[in-house]
């Protein structure tokens, strides 16, 4: 009950600023800063890492919302406010690169999370523990996977209606799941 109360209280600030239609608030931090907090290398091949990512998200209490197997991308939702998208790419034969990207808010308004502590403490450390491998920062000269925006989960009649009307309307912004930050 305390958790429920807490989650509702936290959602208040987001709802207060909500405007009609989905609004995404990107981070104001530089690409270099975002890359440093969102990207790690894992000494395991990509499919193994992808399974580790999914197990970690499940362990952390996220619901798996969408998996794109070929792109090795997973979107997940915790409570109803926190969304996380993770993309895994091969880095040689026995290594992989992981990029996590989180946003938080309501269905109508999502803000990108740009706290290094969040990514480290609330995702990469648990991932490291689950996989029993040591994660490392990606060298600056290497190309980095593009951040993927998490897919929205539809949980209320209002959200379904909003999604349906958005799907029916002409596309004026790139779709949520494919647009990189």
């Amino acid at each position, binding site marked *: *009950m305390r*958790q*429920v*109360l*807490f*989650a*509702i*209280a*936290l*959602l*208040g*600030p*987001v*709802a*207060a*600023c909500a405007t009609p239609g989905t609004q995404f*608030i990107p981070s104001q931090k530089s690409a270099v800063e975002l890359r440093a907090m969102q990207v790690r290398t894992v000494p395991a091949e990509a*499919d193994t890492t*992808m*399974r580790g990512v*999914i*197990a970690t998200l*499940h*362990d*952390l*209490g*996220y*619901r*798996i*919302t*969408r*998996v794109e*197997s070929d792109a090795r991308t*997973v979107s997940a939702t*915790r*409570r*109803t*406010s*926190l969304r*996380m998208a993770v993309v895994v790419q091969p880095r040689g034969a026995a290594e992989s690169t992981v990029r996590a990207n*989180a*946003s*938080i*808010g309501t269905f109508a308004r999502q803000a*990108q*999370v*740009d*706290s290094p*502590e*969040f990514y480290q*403490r*609330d*995702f990469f*450390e*648990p991932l490291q523990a689950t996989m029993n491998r040591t994660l490392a920062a990606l060298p600056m000269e290497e190309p980095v996977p593009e951040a993927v925006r998490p897919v929205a*989960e539809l*949980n*209320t*009649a*209002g959200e379904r209606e909003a999604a349906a009307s958005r799907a029916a309307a002409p596309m004026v912004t790139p779709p949520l799941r494919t647009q990189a930050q």
Partner: protein
Amino acid sequence: MRALRRLMLILPVTAMAAGCQDPDWANRTALQVGAPRVDAAEIRERQTALFATASEERLLVEATQVLQDLGFTIEESAPRFGVLAGSKDRDATEAPEVAGQIALMVAFAVLGAQYNPTWDSDQVIRATLSTRQVSAQEASLRVSFERIVTNNRGMTRVEELTAPEFSTGFFDKVRAGLAQRT
């Protein structure tokens, strides 16, 4: 319990006022909502079972069947990574709760005050499953259930259904299905 419910309605309102003024609300909220669970290991243990099957894929097929039998719609399936997710919608309206809220509204009106009745209106139950081939003869299955309840004012709350009976009941059905098809 009633005081806690009242608090649940008041807190978001006060937090709303602060929300527009705090530029770091997203990170602060994410750190709170996204923190690792202290009882993660116990929950994992309750939600995981081993199955005597040489095929993780077969386990996923059986789990899909059981989910569908339970009325879930499969929303995501990624056999390559052993993932399955489904949901089912249910009306959450309970007549006594609605009657109680209406009675309160009438009582407040008699006293000259206004009261906005609130009751649960609908719910979505979500299931997330992940499988793993543990050995040549065994595969593990983890299942978690959550209930997302929306009230008549459009506010939602999430309840994690982590009691053992939710997962053990599911595992029993999967075991029975696997045995039937052996």
